[in-house]
């Protein structure tokens, strides 16, 4: 994976911040430096405005890059995202990034299967765009609680990603897990050396990992964890990683990650 580009800590203003699905918002701001260098899978560490009473920043993947602007697609979870969602045009935030490693795109244009659960799809959009630009055929499998919370399907289709949907309540698409869709696809399609890219809840990632192993498909996961510094110093964000020689090591999601080989992760 590439050596990370220079990192910036920039003050910027919210350009727009709208509700795009139940409980989910899309925030747009202008960050030329980050827009110019952010790679698929990389994230930013956002300082919620002063006086919000929150201490730590909050990490979010770069969802899209458009000229000088970047967007982030985020789910309401707790206090931080709640304050974020209240920001309006002109409100100022600070953005630290680009951070972390990136998805590995093979030199040969193998077909890509992109599996996103909930807000996890937000971490895969920049990748999808990069794959399509490289002329790679990409399949998008989007899992969601229900139709109201469905994310990114239009955005994926717009860049020519064939997209299938799974919802927990069956309100749209397949009634069940997105990983069931995944196995179904693999059983019914003949894909030459596909690569799986996934991001979502732990349970989903574990299931995807199993599928990848069962079908011998190289699988990359974008991991999440609580973060302090996002610069690699606090060691608060680690995940447990298998070492080639055997044994394990705690690696930093913010630095060695967020992207890891699925088979390396010890759950």
């Amino acid at each position, binding site marked *: 994976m590439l050596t990370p580009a220079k990192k*910036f800590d920039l003050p910027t203003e919210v350009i727009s911040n709208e509700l795009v699905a139940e409980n989910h918002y899309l925030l747009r701001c202008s960050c030329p430096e980050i827009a110019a260098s952010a790679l698929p899978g990389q994230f930013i560490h956002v300082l919620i405005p002063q006086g919000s009473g929150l*201490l*730590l920043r909050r990490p979010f993947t770069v969802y899209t890059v458009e000229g000088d602007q970047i967007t982030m697609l985020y789910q309401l979870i707790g206090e931080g995202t709640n304050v974020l969602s209240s920001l309006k045009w002109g409100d100022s935030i600070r953005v630290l990034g680009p951070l972390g490693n990136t998805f590995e795109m093979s030199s040969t244009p193998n077909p890509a299967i992109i599996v996103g659960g909930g807000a996890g799809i937000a971490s895969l959009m920049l990748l999808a765009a990069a794959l399509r630009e490289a002329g790679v055929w990409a399949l998008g499998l989007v899992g969601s609680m229900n139709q109201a919370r469905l994310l990114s399907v239009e955005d994926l289709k717009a860049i020519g990603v064939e997209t299938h949907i799974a919802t927990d309540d069956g309100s749209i698409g397949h009634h069940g897990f997105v990983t069931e869709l995944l196995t179904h696809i693999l059983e019914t399609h003949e894909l030459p050396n596909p690569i799986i890219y996934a991001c979502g809840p732990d349970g989903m990632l574990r299931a995807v990992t199993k599928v990848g192993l069962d079908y011998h498909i190289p699988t990359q996961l974008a991991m999440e964890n609580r973060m*302090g510094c996002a*610069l*690699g110093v606090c*060691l*608060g*964000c680690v995940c447990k990683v298998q070492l080639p020689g055997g044994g394990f090591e*705690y690696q930093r999601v913010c630095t060695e990650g967020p992207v890891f080989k699925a088979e390396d992760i010890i759950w």
Partner: protein
Amino acid sequence: MSDIHRSLAVNVAGIQMKNPVMTASGTFGYGSEYVDFIDLNQLGAVVVKGITSVPWVGNSMPRIFETPSGMLNAIGLQNVGVDGFIDKKLPYLGNFDVPVIVNICGEHVEEYLEITEKLDAADGVAAIELNISCPNLHCGGMSFGVDPKLTDELVRGVREKTTLPLLVKLSPNVTDITVIARAAEGAGADGLSVINTALGMAIDINTRRPQLANITGGLSGPAIKPIALRMVWQVYNTVSIPIIGMGGIMTGDDAIEFCIAGASAVAVGTANFINPRAALDVADGIEEYLERHGMRSIAELVGSLEVP
């Protein structure tokens, strides 16, 4: 600097620094992680993450949790070990004109001594900070820091092994910090770092599990600043060796409070996570205060608290 007679330079415990602002151990890695934001040459000193005799894997996850105006951490001293540090980390810091203070921790006295000998022999170590206050339960560190006898024994031992300036980092989790401070001074410490994190805990009420895999962890950030200030002031009134004050310092004004309470220098910790330039911003804030009050150096401030 408008006034040429004004200088932020200080010599604390034999460590010559361009300004009185260090980075707190475990919150600034090995320095390299911050070069995109900070010219390390402008720091008073870099205190590196706690080092042990052999590499430690650290605790399992989750390791951190945010609390009101603070955060809990239970990292478990994950580090490359003293040899790895000397081979892989120290050389890089050699490229900068900044004192490197190495924070060390161990489970037994012998371990501390072994690390000390290796650091004493290495190039580019400006001072040793003895962590006898790691709140991580699996680490011997804490038990030393709460017992004056053990503190005396440990500090004496390390003192004999090195001529480097020796800082001892005290735990706030004690009934009377002045007892430990006196023990450390008596055993030959050149300075005291006050304070390490306060032992705390948080619970996920839905899973009924602790928010940290280690159950308890160290509380840092603005929440503990009042406790840290109180302890700096208590220690200042007890010992005659210099104090490096820390605990919730986010701004230059926070640092000034610590100096007035008795700190000759300060360390910035958790603030580095929120603002990568925090240490330099704090130094700038100190300078502005000195200018505003027409002071030539922070020496005029140290311990200047006017008590009724």
